């Protein structure tokens, strides 16, 4: 089918060291401490955290502000080095990979910095081909094909010739996702991808992500505040609080009323819907579920 899919299937080589051949990403007893000054006690610590992500699976990391969600994501991305434990992507530690190799396997979707100079959507998506290029990295026909394909997969083909600063927030998130797809990664990381989107665009985005995850066999880790969207679209959730990983499991098993009330410090109810997905209703207004 698509070039994106073909190469992902090729690269998803079996990994003998795993008990479950489907496990792409394995976070093993990872801890981390952050202090602005090495001589001082750390102001943030992440306690030993473990979970696994399989191919074609979405794992959502949930928790209130300052619970360590983004730290876990940055550790997985290899941007931070764990204090102890290891993070293995198809058997290799993400932190010790060469930046180029890492970017060939891991793509990050995050809130973008303001662009200093205007860029077209297609130029932006082509950036995703950077880790695959030769020394001067002039893009080839094949790169263009892959970038076009990625735009098509997120349903943003018609945006190709628009300027990045002239498209809507929802369109922009799709284009950023397309750039990540153009990297042809095995692991997709998303940091609050639906943060500034309206509800329709949020559902659209996650629906597209769900479809692509299954079709291209990505392993996906997503950090989010949205309990209900995570409950609807994630295969597993990791619930965090103050640098501690409290629970890992299916949304239905983790979304317990007492647990969520204690973690998010608000009153709520949890109902199990007919599709087996939980639904959270907040009884008071709160920051965590809008």
């Amino acid at each position, binding site marked *: 089918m698509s070039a994106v899919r073909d190469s992902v299937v090729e690269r998803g080589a079996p990994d003998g060291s795993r008990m479950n051949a489907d496990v792409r990403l394995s976070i093993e007893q990872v801890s981390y401490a952050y202090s602005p000054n090495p001589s001082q006690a750390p102001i943030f610590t992440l306690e030993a955290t473990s979970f696994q992500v399989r191919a074609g699976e979405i794992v959502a990391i949930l928790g209130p502000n300052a619970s360590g969600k983004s730290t876990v994501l940055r550790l997985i*991305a290899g*941007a931070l080095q764990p204090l102890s434990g290891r993070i293995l992507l198809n058997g290799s530690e993400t932190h010790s990979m*060469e*930046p*180029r*190799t*890492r*970017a*060939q396997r*891991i*793509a*990050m979707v*995050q809130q*973008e*910095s303001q*662009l*200093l*100079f*205007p*860029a077209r959507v*297609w*130029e932006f998506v*082509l*950036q*995703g081909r*950077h*880790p695959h*290029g030769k*020394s*001067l*990295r*002039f*893009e080839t026909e094949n*790169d*263009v094909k892959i*970038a*076009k394909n990625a735009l098509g997969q997120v349903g943003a083909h018609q945006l*190709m*010739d628009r300027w990045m600063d002239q498209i809507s927030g929802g369109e922009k998130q799709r284009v950023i996702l397309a750039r990540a797809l153009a*990297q042809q990664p095995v692991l997709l990381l998303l940091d609050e991808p639906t943060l500034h989107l309206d509800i329709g665009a949020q559902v659209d985005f996650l629906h597209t992500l769900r479809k692509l995850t299954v079709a291209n066999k990505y392993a996906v880790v997503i950090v989010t505040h949205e309990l209900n969207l995570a409950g609807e679209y994630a295969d597993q959730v990791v619930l965090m609080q103050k640098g501690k990983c409290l629970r890992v499991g299916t949304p239905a098993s983790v979304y317990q009323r007492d647990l969520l009330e204690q973690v998010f410090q608000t009153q709520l109810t949890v109902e199990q819907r007919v599709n087996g997905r939980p639904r959270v209703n907040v009884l008071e207004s709160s920051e965590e579920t809008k």
Partner: protein
Amino acid sequence: MQPLTLGKVAVRCGILAVVLFVVVVIALKFGAVPVSLYGLAKDLLGVLIGRSSEISSEYGMIIREIRLPRIALGIFVGASLSVAGTSFQALLRNPLADPYVLGVSFGASVGSILALITEPHLSLRPEIAAVFTPLGGFLGATLTIAVVYLLGRYHGEVDSKTLLLSGVIAGSFLSAIIMLFMTMLPSSNTRGMAYWLMGDLGTPTLPLLNWILRTGFFAGFALIYLTASDLNLLIAGEKEAMHLGVDVKKVQLVVYLAASVLTGLAVSVSGSIGYVGLIVPHVMRMIFGTDYRMLLPASAFGGAIAVVIADTAARTVAAPSELPVGAITAIAGAPLFIYLLRWRLA
């Protein structure tokens, strides 16, 4: 979707090379002794393609010994400053970064002057003595940009306006130091205050120094150009660049050192010519777009063209007296700086 190709870069550089040639011919014509434009172009082209080795003897001496060396110096100084500015803009994520605006040129001036002051006391061999001034310029540039960068950082983030302010303050402090040091220079040194503060291409340079300038330019340019596609991503942010496979620390170090070499070399032979690194990349972005793989060579040609034009104007507008070339570039550059500050950085 039409991505940049090596072919496109080559064609556009070819066009810029032709423009540079025309500008050089016209610049050669201006001066006290009248020279025929047509004959000059014909002779120069003949020399360039190797058909003849001589420029007509009536004015050959003036062209060869006086005007051409000065223009050649202008070409390399302009290209160096412009490429340095383009690089600093990516490195600092600031469209207003320029060696002069950031005070780096003054730092290079101080370094060069210090080298000139200490050199007679060190009894160096002539080859080493020739490298001494540009080396001082390089060290001065490297130190200044590091200090300005650290002053411009606030809580780990580089704020554009704080950075510019740090550069301006550093520049004003360093120009005071320059004035102080000028009094200590041996009287045999012909380069005056205006040379270091405003820039001047009129002082003849030693052949060895010329050779160092050219080699340094090609080496520095090559190093920076190899990172061109990394710079495209770096300018969008360090985190983004890292996630797209850029070895951020390595690229930053290489470009920082190479751009400091270019600045140091240019300043040690021509003083602090301002705004070239600001005007030229800006105009080139408007013409060719923001891709560094095109922008870097375009800035090199553009810088050469701009400085040759500016120097020709400096030689002729107030003839028979001469202006420092930096006065011309500042008259063009300062208004553009204000425009960019008000409408682009806001």
